[in-house]
């Protein structure tokens, strides 16, 4: 007998704000590192520590990417003569 099974999705929503870099860092980490339920406790501890480190690395570089992208938007706005808009984006 072959059984088909379906996993559970998790829905996250926000009101009048966006999901921050920490959320996406968590999601990326979950995609990269899974810890087996039956793993030895010492291995679990090491894996959790490594996972936490990876989460911080993802978070840092996601924030760097946001800064880079925002800088690009500001530059484009200024070069197009939209200084007010550029100043507004710069304050975000």
């Amino acid at each position, binding site marked *: 007998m072959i059984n*088909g099974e*379906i996993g559970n999705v998790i*829905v996250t*929503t*926000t009101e009048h704000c966006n*999901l921050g870099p920490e959320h996406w860092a968590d*999601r990326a980490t979950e995609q990269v590192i899974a810890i087996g339920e039956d793993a030895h406790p010492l291995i679990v501890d090491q894996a959790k520590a490594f996972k936490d480190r990876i989460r911080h690395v993802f978070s840092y570089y996601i924030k760097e990417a946001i800064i880079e992208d925002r800088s690009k938007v500001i530059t484009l706005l200024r070069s197009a003569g939209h200084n007010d808009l550029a100043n507004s984006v710069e304050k975000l």
Partner: protein
Amino acid sequence: MAFSGNFMCTSFKKELMEGGHNFKNSGGDTFRMALYTDSSSFTAATTAYTSSNEITNDAGSAYSAKGNSLTRVDPTTSSTTAYTDFADTSWSTATFSAMGAMIFNDSHSGDASVVILDFGALKTATAGTFTVAFPAADASNAIIRIA
């Protein structure tokens, strides 16, 4: 009639045996996730995408009919279980509510349904982000598994 848990459409099981769906990352079919209201009445006998009771935007235009295209992850195996996965999907600047979703094959003639997903409660985004995170891609949790 409301959503009543996650389930795999029976027609999908048959279509798998007919080679009707390709989940491979490269060259696979286009799978989409459409969102639905609590008025939806899907059963295992559901065979295809429908616009009936599909959600609409309460403001803005973040959601379009047929929802988001999903990024496929190559099917793989672990022990005796085969499974596949998709990358998380999200709608930004969203103002809408949804009670559940359908994943369907947009490449298949008739937009064949694959699975129905119950969110468990009405999920609402207001001028924010609505994101659906898929479970860990492993033999115990992946979104679509054949054991």
